[in-house]
């Protein structure tokens, strides 16, 4: 319980620091006034707007007013959509979640059997092929894999649509693109975790009791091997979200990642800020959950830091 509280408390300075970083980045983008007013505006009009936006206040006061707004979920209005930035971002979240979940499903379907198989058939040809593919999966830029999938499965054979959204078929290529990237990392983790568990005392005991090998592997070894895998994967949430930025852009998938890339390119900073905060909160929450679950599932880990 004490550990739980102290982890929660650690989140606060992190969020503050992120708000600090984002605030200064956005202030550096230049004068918001010049984006908001037409070219023909007079100096007096500019000055009035600056005054009313509070841009003439000292920087720390600006930061406090900004934080007061942020805490209420107010990130300002997107100048491209003329809507509150936070609404636009939240609107795009479900599409990104759909993509993330279907990619995770694909990754699990590939990685769990591949990882187990290469661990029990260590140093065989099959192991070589599996570990080789997972290294290849890491070496290949994700967006290039996406482009190659489009080239072969959409352009050459017209099995799946090139890009867009709306049907299940639209979801297939982006999920494979993102899913295989996750699978590459996951396979490697499962393999090494399984190898470690298979070499442990209790597995030897289970085997010496005369249990069938499938029961030893699936029941005794896998369950224990998956604990570190699940937590390490949860710690990769930031990388996963970074991957959606690129995959969504390649396939014009209307999620938060595509929105963010467009917003950055258009310098629509209100949207960029809102999305960055949402992402940071998601990442922190999933890391915290991973950490606590790990400690809960594996009591050998001490509760002090």
């Amino acid at each position, binding site marked *: 319980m004490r550990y739980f509280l102290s982890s929660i408390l*650690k989140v606060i*300075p*992190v969020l503050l*620091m*992120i708000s600090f*970083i*984002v605030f200064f*980045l956005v202030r*550096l*983008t230049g004068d918001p006034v010049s984006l908001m007013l037409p070219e023909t505006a007079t100096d007096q009009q500019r000055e009035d707007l600056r005054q009313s936006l509070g841009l003439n206040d000292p920087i720390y006061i600006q930061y406090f007013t900004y934080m007061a707004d942020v805490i209420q979920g107010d990130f300002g209005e997107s100048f491209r959509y003329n809507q509150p930035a936070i609404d636009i971002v939240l609107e795009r979240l479900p599409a990104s979640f759909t993509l993330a979940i279907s990619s995770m499903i694909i990754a699990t379907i590939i990685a769990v059997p591949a990882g187990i198989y290469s661990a029990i058939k260590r140093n065989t040809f099959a192991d070589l092929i599996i570990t080789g593919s997972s*290294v*290849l999966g*890491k*070496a*290949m*830029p*994700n*967006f*290039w894999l996406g*482009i*190659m999938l*489009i*080239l072969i499965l959409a*352009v050459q054979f017209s099995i799946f649509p090139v890009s867009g959204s709306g049907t299940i078929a639209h979801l297939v290529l982006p999920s494979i693109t993102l899913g295989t990237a996750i699978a590459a990392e996951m396979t*490697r983790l499962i393999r*090494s975790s399984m190898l470690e568990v298979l070499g442990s005392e209790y597995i030897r005991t289970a085997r010496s009791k005369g249990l069938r090998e499938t029961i030893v592997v699936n029941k005794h070894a896998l369950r224990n091997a998956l604990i570190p895998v699940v937590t390490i994967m949860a710690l990769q949430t*930031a*990388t996963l*979200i*970074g991957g959606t*930025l*690129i995959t969504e*852009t*390649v396939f014009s998938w209307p999620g938060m990642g595509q929105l*963010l*890339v467009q917003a*950055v*390119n258009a*310098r629509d900073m209100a949207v*960029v800020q809102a999305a*960055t905060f949402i*992402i*940071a909160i998601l*990442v*922190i929450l999933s*890391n915290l959950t991973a950490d606590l679950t790990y400690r809960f599932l594996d009591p050998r880990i001490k509760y002090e830091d």
Partner: protein
Amino acid sequence: MNANTQVEQNMDVKPHHKEQSRVSKVFKQLWKSKTGTVGLVIVLCVILMAVFADIIAPYDHTETNVSARLLPPFWMEGGSFNYILGTDNLGRDVLSRIIIGSKVSLLVGIASVIVAGAIGLFLGLVSGYYGKWIDQVIMRLVDSFLAIPNILFMLIILAVIGPSLTSIIIVLGVTTWVIYARMVRSETLSIKERDYVKSARAIGASDYRIIKKYILPNVVSSFIVIATLNVATTIILESSLSFLGLGIQSPDVSWGLMLSDGRDYLATSWWVATFPGLAITITVLGIIFLGDWLRDMLDPKTKS
């Protein structure tokens, strides 16, 4: 403990002798590891290609030829040996652009790792060695950086300061230092509690001397391994940035930028986007092989 006694022992040996036996030992070990050898060969080829790019490349990377637009590679109908890997939409030679693009990819990869490594080494040492509140501040900073995806962080900064070769290197460095800082911090934490460090401090050695003489030599091998593997990561990040439009800008060329250009011609001319992607994959694969081999050699405890 082992790593350090090893270091101490090596110090007693005459420097010349040590060098020779070490080099031959390294090569013997390298020859045993097939993937390590492949990795080293690939990396050396890419370095040579980048260094002599302007001599090897048959054409200049900006040289356009309107009458030779979107020509296929030589083995396809309509292709010729003038343009071995074909041409892009402006009639520029794909092979030449890949060769010259290797300069940017490699330069960005290596330079940004140096920037990130320097920041991470410094903050990791300070955090681990001095501890207390400064450690808290640096670790919360690390947490904040971990909470924002690298690529997003880079996009925002580049949108603010504008993309150029220098700004890309700095941005990649400033956003990827975290991994070094964490590694250096945890190594420092364990080394500073050892008896020989405590006795050094007891006889009045300065912090600077302790860090230089005892901590750095113990950190260096893990550091080299992580840095090598991170050259691969930054090459992929650079190509992603260029692909998203905030990386290398034309008329300069990088593999990611070529991929981004080629994407619009997928339906008719697959080669424009395919070859630069292959170049990235092969290079990164080579670096990963080399890095894994270095890890087995230098840093057996982190062996996966």
